[in-house]
């Protein structure tokens, strides 16, 4: 029974990673860049939600929506100002710019909201669902996290597969040149991708802070790296891959913490990643690219 409860906790943590990883992987799939500032966009979302909830006393759902709006705008603005001028630059230049943006957001947050940690209010009641005669307890928060993650995943998949914009996004990730010839506004699609990725990062931020309620300007960096790992784990650029990678990473982390060692859990997560990449060099669901000579 303990195993089952660890598994569920792992799925809950993994759901948060999965949502952040979706943002990473979408941006990578379409703009072919590693957006290292993604974790920090999430951090800004957490602060916006925090102030909406505490200083302005806005209820939970509108606060989350407000936070999503803020990160969406932030994501689009960052893309326009910092990444768009580098559309044709080498990937390393874009990477360094993303790191610059990440520094900017972290230090900006420190300046605006001070580096002292803040305590995120509880947003979901403390109760839990009891199964098997009370042997297995699942807190409402865990359930909500998992359900929200699945909902985000389903909406995103439907959006990508069923709408015209989604089709345009797929076209852009295949071949930008051909997409342009088909009359797709590639710049617009990239902006939309950033908007969606950043918007769902706010959801992840609120869920993360509800589970681990300490808020600081460096909040986004470690989950950011983990989510990036999750995205690669599942095959970067693949949306189901990010979902699967995130969930697996969360489960491995919690199980390693429970059965091996708390301090070594990060090392174990990264070791599993290396092993997976050695067996499947493009991640679990990544496409194998054949090389043209």
């Amino acid at each position: 029974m303990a195993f089952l409860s660890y598994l569920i906790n792992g799925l809950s943590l993994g759901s948060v990673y999965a949502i952040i990883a979706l943002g990473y992987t979408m941006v990578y799939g379409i703009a072919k860049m590693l957006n290292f500032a993604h974790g920090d966009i999430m951090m800004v979302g957490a602060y916006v939600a925090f102030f909406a909830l505490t200083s302005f006393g806005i209820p939970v759902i509108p606060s989350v929506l407000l936070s999503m709006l803020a990160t969406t705008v932030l994501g689009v603005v960052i893309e326009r100002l910092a990444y768009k001028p580098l559309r044709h630059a080498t990937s390393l230049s874009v990477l360094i710019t993303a790191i610059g943006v990440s520094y900017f957001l972290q230090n900006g947050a420190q300046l605006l909201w001070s580096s002292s940690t803040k305590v995120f209010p509880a947003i979901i009641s403390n109760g839990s669902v009891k199964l098997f005669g009370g042997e297995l307890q699942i807190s409402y928060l865990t359930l909500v996290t998992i359900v929200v993650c699945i909902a985000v995943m389903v909406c995103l998949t439907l959006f990508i597969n069923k709408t015209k914009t989604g089709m345009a996004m797929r076209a852009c990730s295949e071949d930008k040149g051909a997409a342009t010839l088909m009359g797709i506004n590639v710049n617009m699609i990239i902006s939309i991708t950033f908007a969606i990725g950043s918007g769902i990062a706010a959801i992840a931020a609120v869920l993360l802070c509800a589970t681990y309620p300490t808020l600081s300007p460096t909040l986004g960096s470690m989950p950011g790296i983990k989510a990036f790992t999750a995205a690669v784990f599942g095959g970067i650029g693949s949306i189901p891959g990010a979902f699967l990678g995130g969930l697996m990473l969360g489960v491995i982390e919690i199980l390693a913490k429970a059965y091996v060692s708390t301090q070594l859990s990060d090392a174990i997560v990264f070791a599993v990643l290396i092993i997976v990449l050695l067996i499947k060099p493009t991640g679990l669901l990544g496409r194998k690219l054949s090389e043209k000579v």
Partner: protein
Amino acid sequence: MKTENNFFKKLFAKNYRSRTISFLIIIVGYIAVEALMMSGNLSSMFQSLLVPVTCYIVAAIGLNLNVGVSGELNLGQAGFMCIGAFSGVCVSGALAPFISNGIVRLLLAIIVGAALAALFGMIIGIPVLKLQGDYLAIVTLAFGEIIKSLINNMYIGFDSEGFQFSFVENKLHLGPGGKALISGPMGATGTERISTFMIGVLLILAALFIVYNLMYSRSGRAIMACRDNRIAAESVGIHVANTKMLAFVVSASLAGAAGALYGLNYSTLVPSKFGFNLSILILVYVVLGGLGNMTGTIISTIVLVLLPELLRGLADYRMIIYAVILIITMILTNNDTFKGWIAKLKNSLSFKKQPKEAEAHE
């Protein structure tokens, strides 16, 4: 025939020039710093930066070999520095009763640090170099985090009976006169500070010597061939995996040497210092300095280490300004208009050389 000869002569002269310039920068910089120190014009804050700057330069030269010359994005340079730093601390701590001369111990620590980092580089390189592009980047990132996390849980002590080692929990039972060298998350404490600026400068010169000799050798050309076109390189008989491994291991050992120097510069050192952020910091030095350009790496490292200190007057805004400078530099160096403008400037500055060039092309 004659023009070809001329061309090669010029090429060598040009190659030689960039080498000479980077050596000169280091030597002139060293003399200038020593002169400033002697005249008492160097504030203690800048003095405390001297050794770290040399460490960063050595690690960045190594990383540039990996990222610029070999074309593999490595996000785990801090992991190799971590190995070098803590093995260096152990060597120096264990040898302290036997060798009183700090310089000798420092040199031994640097050698051991470099060797161990090279060994780990080889172990991690075998599987890693099979991957490409962003996947290679993430594995090196993961590797750096693993090293940091392992050393964070490692306890090493030294007493009359030799080294003692324990993992996760502190189970060291040190005899009389024994000393704990690494104590888990607390890192190395009570380290004797034996790093000197002069050794740091010598290490940079050694690193430049190694990297330049490698770059302009047969192996160096093979490394660049693998970067530019792996398949073409393979088809002319270059063993791609071995060639990439060479660059990776040399880069790792330079980081290890830099780490040893870094570790022995502080009396306390925690493993969490060598995280992802340090790897990124060094990568920023390399990319801003120019890929494959060692002179650029040296200059950009010095400027970027000094920049936050020079901006100290702006207090809280300094890191934001640093970030903005980083972004603007990246955007400008990739802007065609700006590039054209710089090229024009260069042309107008070197107009005297143009007739010669025209002659050579005839």
